[in-house]
């Protein structure tokens, strides 16, 4: 089951870290970083059903 309730230990810090991680990168480099990040997180999550749920939700956030 995909967790959609608040679950980040430090939401503000983690969001700021995400933005900071992209600092100084061109748009293309940023897209590439995002792609790597998604793959790394996908592996961490692992479960195919949870991943599919997350992808559907990202495509259509109103479908909670």
């Amino acid at each position, binding site marked *: 089951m995909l967790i959609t309730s608040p679950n980040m230990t430090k939401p503000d810090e983690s969001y700021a870290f995400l933005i900071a991680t992209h600092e100084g990168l061109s748009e293309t480099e940023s897209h590439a970083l995002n792609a790597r990040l998604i*793959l790394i997180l996908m592996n961490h999550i692992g479960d195919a059903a949870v991943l599919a749920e997350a992808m559907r939700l990202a495509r259509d956030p109103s479908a909670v």
Partner: protein
Amino acid sequence: MKHDMPDRYALAFQLYPYAKSPDQAAAAPVRHPVIVVGGGPIGLATALDLGKRGVPVLLLDDHEGAGLGSRALCFAKRTLEICDRLGAAGPMLQKGVQWNLGKVFHDDRLLYEFNLLPEGGHAMPAFINLQQPWFEKFLHDAILAAQAEGAPIEIRGKNRVEGVTPATDHVALEVMTPDGPYALEAEWLIACDGARSPLRGMLGLGFEGRVFEDNFLIADVKMKADFPTERWFWFEPHFKSGDSALLHKQPDDIWRIDFQLGWNIDRAKELEPSRIRARVDAMLGPGVEYELDWCSIYTFQCRRMDRFRHGRVLFAGDSAHQVSPFGARGANSGVQDVDNLAWKLALVVQGVAPEALLDSYDTERVHGAEENILNSTRATDFITPKTPVSKMFRNAVLALAGTLPFARTVVNSGRLSLPCTYDGSVLNGADHAAMPARTRPGSPCPDAPLDGCWLLARLGRGFTLMGIGIGVPETMAAHGVTVEGLSLDPTPELVARYLGGAERGVYLIRPDQHVAARWDHLDAAAVAAALARAIGKE
């Protein structure tokens, strides 16, 4: 009157020269129990399998042997096991090249190596590299050997099927020969006439799927260089000879090189030897001497027929389904079609099984084709990403694969062909929960060493009842079928592959070496019921 029948392709081996048949002078069309159209790998294997099962079979091909050219190269373990059952594997193994080590590069970086160290305790290797004309020649040699032992197989070269008319109890054929046309009738017709299948066209049947917008230059190169016997695959290679490139060893000092050229190319120009040489030079580096043996440009597609059985006409091999070569699933899956079809058709022709058994050929092999199309589509999409976003993700995977093992599991330069398990087939009977999943009903039997021989060598003439740790009767007759008994003592391999958590096991095994049903005890009535189900009598 002599009719000119020019070859559509040059021959590597002349195997079955045209000879006039008495059928050509017959007053009325001669009827044959089974006619196979097409003498490619799938048609040859079909004729061989049916003939060895005692079914009279006539094969018609519009050429006189195996075509020259760079097509199939990788033959997988299951194909070799089937060829072994057909008596053709020995020379294939002897001539074929075996490899275990693969290397994957991105640009000029070696991302990782993989070793295909196959599981021990199998007679056949994971696969071999062997040129398709040799594969066909060895099948034909096995046909000659089977004929010498009385197998009722006949091959007619330069017999081109030009018309097909289905009727209720037969199919009528019009055949062209150098001596002019003649008519034939078949009770059953097997169309093994390749991806462009003229028979499919004559019957107005569709072949839907996807064309990949890319061209691949396949160059077979002869060189004495001592490159190691490994498979090297490059994504976006630094030598710029293509968007991807593959180097693979074949027998006779021949190497298969593939270059991905993109969609908008000038084919004629790309096939000029000087241009091909420039690409190969850039890849191999300076000072490597080689000759161009055979070069061609392919576009790839993944498509299949809706159904493989149309009444008395059955489609097998590329005529029924076509895949891109990534993962080597073309001929390998076609040989599994043959494996599945031959015993069923033999039982129907012999009047033992109802015609409905042939519908299970359709469902089981459509299932196999779906699996193959899915796998080869995914590999093709990874190798040739179709949108900027999919290319970005592909390259992100490659960027991580150098250091992160998890990313290597996503890298897809072709997943090697594995045999299909017929989960959910109507022919499947009882299962036993404590036994291993890999041998559940529908699965191809994994091999195992027996005292001085191999398990698979003992399976596949007809139905087998295998007892492990239980004595089974030497023969059992039910529903017009004689089941051969095979009583085995448990060995470590048999325990791991067949018993799992069970103390002992009884397996009913189909003539194509797939599991029909399994139990942990012997119950003759249950075996007979599973047999009825497995031959479509339920």
